[in-house]
């Protein structure tokens, strides 16, 4: 069966790849940007020493941000809130969505530790007024409170709130908010580039058969097939 797709051999492909010149400095910048945005200070410091690449953000600010993120990841929400407020009180004052999410996480931690009475009191005093100010929070509040009603939380419809992933989600939102407040990009560039690679390959798939990368973790070229 004749195919309208062009076939590109491995040899030809590798030749084309080698012809594209990418500067080492640019690649280093990408790596540094990733380490810094994700908040890996030690690795960033080491990398700076080894490669001589300068980070876009001061490494000192990263430490502050990482303390916030870590507190959130461990479920120490009150601590995280206090740290953000020390860093920049405007963040939570001007971001009701984020503030609600953090308070919601506090509620979840209270429920997780079986402190039902305290949880209800907290919901009443801290979260209910937020829901009054903004009706979209009401639904979330009700979902969270319903956790209290279930004996077996592993099987309940809102059980995912107790999952560790909820904490990580909150922590990541907090990290993004701090980055944005520091006028930094909240997303590292590297994942976006990988997404572009996959998109480009998908587009090219329609027109040609060529050695493509299927496993991003090892970036091995696989031979073209029809």
């Amino acid at each position, binding site marked *: 069966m004749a195919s309208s797709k062009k076939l590109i051999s491995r040899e030809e492909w590798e030749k084309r790849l080698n012809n594209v010149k990418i500067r080492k400095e640019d690649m280093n910048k990408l790596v540094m940007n990733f380490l810094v945005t994700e908040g890996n200070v030690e690795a960033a410091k080491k990398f700076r020493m080894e490669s001589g690449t300068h980070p876009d953000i001061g490494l000192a600010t990263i430490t502050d941000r990482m303390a916030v993120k870590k507190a959130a990841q*461990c*479920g*120490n*929400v*009150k*601590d995280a*809130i*206090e740290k953000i*407020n020390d860093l*920049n*009180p*405007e963040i*939570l*004052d*001007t*971001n*009701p*969505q984020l*503030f609600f999410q953090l308070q919601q996480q*506090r509620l979840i*931690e*209270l429920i*997780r*530790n079986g*402190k039902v009475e*305290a949880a209800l*009191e*907290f919901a009443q005093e*801290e979260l209910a*007024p*937020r829901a009054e*100010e*903004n*009706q*979209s929070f009401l639904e979330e509040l009700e979902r969270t409170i319903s956790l209290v009603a279930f004996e077996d939380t592993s099987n309940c419809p809102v059980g995912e709130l107790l999952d560790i992933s909820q904490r990580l989600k909150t922590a990541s939102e907090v990290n993004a908010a701090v980055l*944005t407040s520091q*006028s930094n990009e909240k997303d590292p560039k590297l994942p976006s580039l990988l997404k572009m690679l996959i998109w480009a390959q998908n587009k090219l798939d329609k027109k040609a058969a060529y050695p493509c990368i299927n496993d991003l973790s090892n970036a091995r070229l696989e031979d073209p097939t029809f």
Partner: protein
Amino acid sequence: MPSATVNKPRPSELLSRLTSAEPEVKVRALREVKNQIIGNRTKKLSFLKLGAVPAVAGILADSIDDVTENNNCNNTNNFLVQSAAALGSFACGFDAGVQAVLDAGAFPNLLRLLANPNEKVVDAVARALRMIYQSKLAPKYDFLQQKNMEFLISLLNSEKETVSGLGASIITRSCETNLEQKALFDAGILRKLNSLLEGGSLSQRDASLESLATVFRNNPEVISKFAGPEIGRPLSSIIDLAKDRYPRTRLLACMCLIVIRNASPHFLQDIGIKTKLIHILLELLDDPGQVGDEAPFAFSSLIAQKEDLQKLALEANAIDKFHHHIKKGSLHPRRYEGILLALADMCSKLESCRSKFLSLQVLNLVADALTDYNAGVRAAACICLKSVTRSIKNLSAGYFMNETIVIPLVQLFLDPSTSVQVAALGATSNIVVDFTTRKSIFVQCGGMKQLVQLAKSMESSVRSNALWALKNFVFQADNRLKEGVFSELTASLLSSLIRDPEPSVQEQALALVRNLVDGCINLIEFVFAEDGLILGAIGRQLQCASKAEIGIQGMYALCNVASGNEFHREAVMQLLFTQMGDKNQSFVVKFLQSNDSQLRTATVWTIVNLTCPSSPGAPCRLEKLRNAGIVSQIKNMVNDPCVDVKVTIFFIFRICFLFASLFWLT
């Protein structure tokens, strides 16, 4: 590890710790207050009521003294940072907080602290000041004073984002007059803002866009100087930012471009930029946050009163997009209000837009919004209805006079908010101009009675709008309806409204009478009810009419009365000749000499009706008019620029010919 503590100190307890002698206790309490109020409006209010703000402001003031005495630096800085942050949080988006901070005298202290050597202190203070300047209550900044301008420039030149951001906020809040805008331009501020636009960080770019828009507003001179010799370049950086990756930047850039467009006829007029702006704003609607909430307002400012833009927006499927968003439901009230107002602007002039609106069945969604819990949304829904109901085609078909719309609309007549009442009345005024025989629906759901009640409101805008609606309601209505309105109103109420202190109310009341007596001769009896209360009121009001519109409506009312029988005509004559002051001149001559052509027209028509040859008393009345110099005045108007007047005058001449002897004697 769980961290929630339940044994929180009560607010009053915390407050007393703020005045503790021990610095440790004090600073911990201060930090706790700060952490409790951030993000929590309810707590801000309760701490405010307990007097927290003066206490915190006091700590700030004391710490400044400590700084000057060089006491324990670290501790002092900590106090400064925490108290400034707490004050800033009280002021953040909370007007009562701003007022309290200003009342506590913290403002001058905060300003002084901008010069503090410690970075964290300066950051906290700059933020607090910026929160204050985001409020309408912020003290007015006098740009015209030299040292103030220098201070502002120093702020903008600062390396610190928080400080340059403060400088921009001051401009955005305080710059109001053309003089101030020019002063800012002359001091080179715009060049500085432009450099922040091109080389600054995200927040600096955003702040700069807002400030530039403020300086450009309604000032074509400053705009053309800015776009200056390097024509296009500064504007092109703003245009580029309209395509920026951050939604907020895109919105602010669009708003800046719209300000430029609206102020100056020379810039940004080509169809390319118009289309681009429309598309960017419509796309920003998809943003789930504050940017999406504000986008429809920016859209309104772009298209309002501009048919060419409304047409372009229609082609860009704007109405479909707005419809799509409203349909989704659970909108933030600000966004809901914005979209309704944008739809109102879209349908304000073009029938094609109204047709599209109606064909998509958006009307039902707008009718739902009439019962929304938010007053701004209810008012916006009414304003939207008012625009759509300008469609004569659909009014004639009786499309709007149905219960789905009329019942909730009439309920809004009793709305606690005056602006909602007025907006509802505006929509009603259009809807009741119904050319079918369905006006009775309005009576049945109590609308007419409500309007009469509103005509007695304490608010003059409510009175005049209620009368407007009644005026439209009785326009060419059948006798039964008119009688119903009149008996509900009563002669005494109507005559007192004619003599209302507010000119706009007088005008509408007279217009209502005009419409009431128009048509059947029996209706003219209204003005004679209760010893001629209404007729008398008209006469007195015409003698001291403060503006032409009042004269016009009054004369047309008299004109209609004079179209009745002899008794009616004689009554009008008597009214015209009641003396006023020492002038000995009837207001008729004054009206005939008016600059307003409508007023002249109304007056000559009245004279035609008075001297109509078929009536036995006509010659007598014509004689009286001649003696009062009115006929000669009319003869002078033979070349009146207004066609209506000229044509009517020739009627009068014909009449005069019929009574030839009288004519030649003039």
